[in-house]
């Protein structure tokens, strides 16, 4: 259904202006035409009554001497005097026709319905006028005139035509004026909308708009700027907190990890050695969780910045596979493609983080298996990296959700630890590289893909960050 709120403000403004001017001009022209027509009619009635009076006065003697021929002759003169009269007649005091005149081709004369001094209009087409013939204060008959209002039709036609043309001109002018006004208003509004959209998309809250003027839109811009300032302030506080938390959490963790690692080297006696190993494993797990949580805070406060450089992705793939292989005693990670020193632009450390995350997931979610396959495919525009496992797989209905924060796969028969942050972080990192990350099901297990553009598509702003 047609809804007013669905029309853009721009069009509403134009519509309003055009509508208002059409209504105003319409009323003005209407009143003008009606007054004009009425005054014309009044004048016509007056002049016809005067004419009827003259005819009446001149026909007194004809009536008194019963000479209808003389009266008829006088009426025939009307043909020259007032050509718009189509019928004229004189009746005696009994209302019977005494003399009449009919314009050639005009309808036959009818007995007038009017009596005394009177007039009536037959629509806008004809005017009937009658006037008594008075002699010595006695009514001796009536003069009756039927007038064709051809001129009125013409006047009306002309006036309506003129009004229509003027209305069109007014319409065009008001449309042009509205266009100018709206472009001024909507330009500023759109600028604001653009700024808000940009902030929503990039999470950069440092955008402020120039305040121009004192109207409602300027107030809106002011409110926007104030909001940006407040967000910036709270972001700053949050960033400070992340900084402090990061430092304060990691400092003791560094000590714990370091000393436990040393104990692990020094202690050879069982079961002490086993206890130390377990402690170390858990310290490492804790370290990863702290890192992930801090990364998520950074992502959310728009603080995760990439350090974009050109690097050899094939080398990184090999290094990462070795690193992941080192921590997995159960799986063999196999590289299917042939490295050919592909160079890409990106944050090497963050891409490594994504690879490690996907590899460790592949291992974690395929207990009892022993194979993970890494493959890559280069297209014209992008490089696609595939990591395939032969594990429990991801059900189709969960394939979108697994990249959400704190999402954990449902219906997993084995307990798998983690916060459900890894893939969320991966997705953010890949998105910031203008790439995509997704998962597909295989016959057994799943394949995680991510793509990275081969061309340098980062803005200067990001490379500087």
């Amino acid at each position, binding site marked *: 259904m047609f809804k007013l709120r669905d029309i853009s403000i721009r069009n509403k403004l134009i519509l309003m202006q055009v509508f208002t001017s059409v209504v105003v001009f319409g009323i003005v022209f209407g009143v003008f035409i009606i007054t004009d027509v009425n005054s014309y009619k009044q004048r016509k009635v007056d002049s016809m009554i005067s004419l009827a009076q003259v005819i009446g006065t001149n026909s007194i003697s004809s009536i008194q001497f019963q000479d209808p021929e003389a009266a008829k002759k006088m009426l025939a003169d009307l043909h020259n005097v007032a050509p718009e009269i189509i019928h004229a007649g004189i009746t005696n005091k009994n209302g019977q026709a005494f003399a009449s005149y009919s314009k050639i081709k005009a309808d036959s004369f009818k007995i007038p319905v009017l009596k005394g001094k009177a007039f009536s209009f037959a629509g806008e087409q004809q005017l009937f006028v009658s006037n008594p013939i008075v002699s010595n204060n006695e009514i001796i008959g009536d003069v009756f005139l039927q007038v064709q209002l051809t001129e009125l039709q013409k006047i009306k036609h002309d006036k309506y035509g003129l009004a229509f043309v003027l209305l069109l001109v007014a319409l065009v002018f008001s449309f042009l004026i509205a266009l100018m006004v709206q472009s001024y208003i909507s330009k500023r509004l759109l600028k604001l909308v653009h700024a808000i959209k940009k902030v929503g998309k990039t999470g950069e809250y440092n955008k402020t708009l120039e305040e121009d003027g004192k109207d409602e839109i300027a107030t809106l811009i002011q409110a926007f700027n104030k909001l940006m300032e407040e967000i910036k302030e709270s972001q700053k506080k949050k960033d400070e907190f992340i*900084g402090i938390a*990061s*430092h304060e*959490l*990691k*400092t*003791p*963790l*560094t*000590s*714990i*990890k*370091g*000393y436990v*690692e*040393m104990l692990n*080297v020094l202690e050879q006696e069982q079961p002490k050695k086993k206890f130390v190993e377990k402690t170390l494993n858990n310290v490492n797990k804790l*370290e990863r969780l702290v890192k992930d949580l801090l990364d998520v805070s950074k992502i959310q406060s728009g603080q995760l*910045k990439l*350090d974009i450089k050109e690097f050899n992705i094939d080398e990184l793939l090999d290094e990462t596979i070795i690193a992941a292989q080192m921590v997995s005693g159960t799986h063999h990670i196999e590289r299917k493609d042939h490295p050919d020193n592909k160079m890409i632009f990106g944050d090497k*450390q963050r891409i490594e983080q994504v690879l490690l995350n996907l590899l460790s997931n592949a291992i974690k979610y395929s207990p009892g298996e022993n194979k993970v396959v890494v493959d890559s495919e280069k297209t014209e525009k992008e490089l696609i990296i595939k990591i395939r496992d032969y594990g429990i797989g991801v059900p189709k209905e969960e394939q979108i959700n697994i990249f959400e924060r704190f999402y954990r796969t449902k219906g997993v028969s084995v307990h798998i630890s983690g916060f459900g942050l890894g893939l969320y972080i991966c997705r953010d990192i890949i998105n910031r590289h203008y790439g995509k990350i997704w998962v597909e099901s295989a016959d057994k297990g799943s394949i995680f893909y991510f793509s990275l553009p081969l061309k340098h598509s980062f803005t200067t702003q990001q490379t500087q960050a």
Partner: protein
Amino acid sequence: MNKILVVDDDLDILSLVQVILSMNNFTVEAISRWEDISNKIAEFKPNLVLLDVMLGGADGRDICRNLQTQAATKDIPVVLFSANPEMGKYIKDCMAKDFVAKPFEMAQLLKTVRTYVN
């Protein structure tokens, strides 16, 4: 060619790094006050400085830049270490040789240090 000066305001980490490096046949001096760095370098003449970034009251990056621009200390390589992994991006900026993120793996710390001293 195996003298290392470690600077960190966290005493536990300081002694941890000292123990790890000593166990691996490095001669180590460890200080927690950044104000003592100049004197210590003059006296100990280290072959490498392992420098924390977030020192109480001072930024390791500034200290590093200072050391690298002074004639007496510019040839001593500096490796930064910090709990903030973002600091790794600044090593070129402050003329440090390398960066180690905390918490670190022992092997990784040793590998980095051995790149610059033997």
